[in-house]
């Protein structure tokens, strides 16, 4: 195979190029091990026989998963978490998507300031939001804390994520498609329903998916805004804090697998959307 000499190949190559390359490969390997080793040990310990997880491994068992399956307080906590996540996701997705339109397409006075304002709840540590809401609900409004206050707390930080994700998709939206639809006699509503929404659907879906995981996982804000109820993270927290049982390892492993599944599902849906868009553009 004859090939011309690319100008890049005549460039001076560092004498240490090989060493640099290998040290970078080793670094990447170590980093990946660093990221996954704790998780691997966690999964291993969830099958450990002894009641105090640790080395050496005495034997493997499914006992803790059976305990988990029989534990009604976990199921109740899981149900509460799911309940909150569903309400939060529906509200945050709708509200966030609506905000993205004026933010990208004009209609608000200072989109830059608004954008910064909407990134604040993402950046401000959750503990501050949680404490602010606790003081607001209890000391200013004198409300009883409960699931609705948790939903309110989750809305604060999930809505901005939807706004940013949908706005990013809208930014690259080819508006000529809408004008074509309008030109052909479609009402604004029909254009929105049949042209705009289907095209930004992957972003909306990604935002919704992120909301579900964020809400199910949220501990800090829930901790400050909840009443007597218990969500899954709160349950895990009490388990970790007061009395380590291998059951926690089992819950953690199940959560891990569930998140991975949701993540895989999400990426399949998203890449499907991406492919569709590419086809639409072609």
């Amino acid at each position, binding site marked *: 195979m004859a090939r011309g000499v690319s100008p890049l190949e005549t460039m001076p190559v560092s004498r240490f190029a090989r060493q640099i390359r290998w040290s*970078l490969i080793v670094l990447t390997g170590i980093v990946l091990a660093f990221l996954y080793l704790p*998780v691997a040990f966690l999964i291993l310990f969830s099958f450990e026989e002894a009641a105090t997880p640790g080395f050496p491994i005495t034997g493997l068992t499914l006992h803790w998963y059976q305990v988990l399956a029989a534990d009604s307080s976990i199921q109740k906590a899981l149900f509460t978490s799911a309940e909150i996540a569903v309400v939060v996701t529906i509200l945050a997705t709708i509200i966030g998507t609506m905000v993205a339109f004026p933010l990208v397409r004009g209609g608000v006075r200072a989109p830059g300031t608004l954008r910064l304002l909407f990134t604040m709840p993402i950046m401000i540590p959750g503990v501050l939001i949680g404490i602010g809401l606790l003081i607001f609900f209890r000391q200013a409004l004198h409300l009883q804390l409960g699931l609705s206050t948790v939903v309110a707390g989750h809305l604060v930080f999930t809505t901005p994520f939807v706004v940013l994700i949908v706005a990013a998709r809208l930014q690259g939206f080819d508006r000529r498609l809408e004008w074509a639809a309008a030109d052909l006699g479609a009402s604004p509503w029909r254009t929105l329903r049949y042209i705009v929404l289907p095209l930004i659907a992957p972003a909306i879906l990604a935002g919704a998916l992120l909301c579900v995981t964020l809400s199910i996982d949220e501990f800090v804000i829930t901790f400050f805004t909840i009443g007597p109820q218990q969500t899954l993270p709160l349950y895990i927290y009490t388990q970790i804090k007061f009395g380590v049982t291998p059951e926690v390892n089992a819950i953690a492993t199940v959560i891990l697998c569930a998140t991975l599944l949701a993540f895989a599902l999400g990426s399949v849906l998203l890449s499907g959307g991406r492919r569709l868009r590419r086809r639409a553009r072609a």
Partner: protein
Amino acid sequence: MTAETLDGAASAPLAGVPNSLVRRLGRALPALPGLAVLLFLFLVPMAIMFVFSFWRTNNDFRLVPDWNLDNYARFFLEGTYLRTFLKTLVMGSLVTLATLLIGIPFAYFLVRYTNRWVQRAILLAVIVPFWTSYLVRVYAWQAILGEHGALNQFLMGIGLINQPSTLFNYDDPGVFVVLTYIYFPFAVLALYAALEKFDFTQLNAAQDLGARPDQAFRHILLPQIRAGIITACIFVFIPILGEFLTPTLVGGAQSSLIANLVVNYLRQAQFAEGGALAIIIAAFVTVVMIVFRKSLRVEDVVTSG
């Protein structure tokens, strides 16, 4: 395409419609529910916390409008608060530095040395933990750092120590390791997004013109990924100012960070005192965000998942 041109183009086909107040209101209308959430669940609570921070909690744990500056004075006068705050800043800086020192070569390797598929796979491997439960990730470290954890067993196995060390489980080094672990993915995402946009032939050009590799790196590459580095710093440093879980779960009594003190106040129903401390942290965060708002690329981190 910028927002202005989009906006201008948007009104073109509707040129006949007068740009009346009604029309403008109509276009801003969809933002209202979101603004309401932002206003009533974020800005107003923060403002109320600010007001209450000048009040006092009386003996019945009630807030009374007895205006004073004591809650703020305490922060500066009583050593514990200032010391813990400084310690939090040091911890945050160390973790940020660690994530940058690991993250920059890591992201550089991804962009420069791997093909598209490997790149996507490794990036995915970095993002996945970011999607799993925070509590689970912190807890997972107990399997390694705990008293019967892998690290102690390993160190005992090679004969370096005789009995399980509590250095990693109940002290600052453990908190440092876990925080680095938790916030590393954010840094990588920000750095990767910046490096991906960089045209690496510029480095060759610089060297062609006589620059040493380190000069090319410092004067050509670094300035162009500056925004990515700042974003990475902010995404690692700021959350640590609000970290109270990791110190609680893997640290000991001595590893409290500033947010732990806020939470302690709240536990004792001292809303005014805790509120003042929270306001100090929030003010610090807000200033950092406003100073770096031009370089902060939240979307790079948020939308890459």
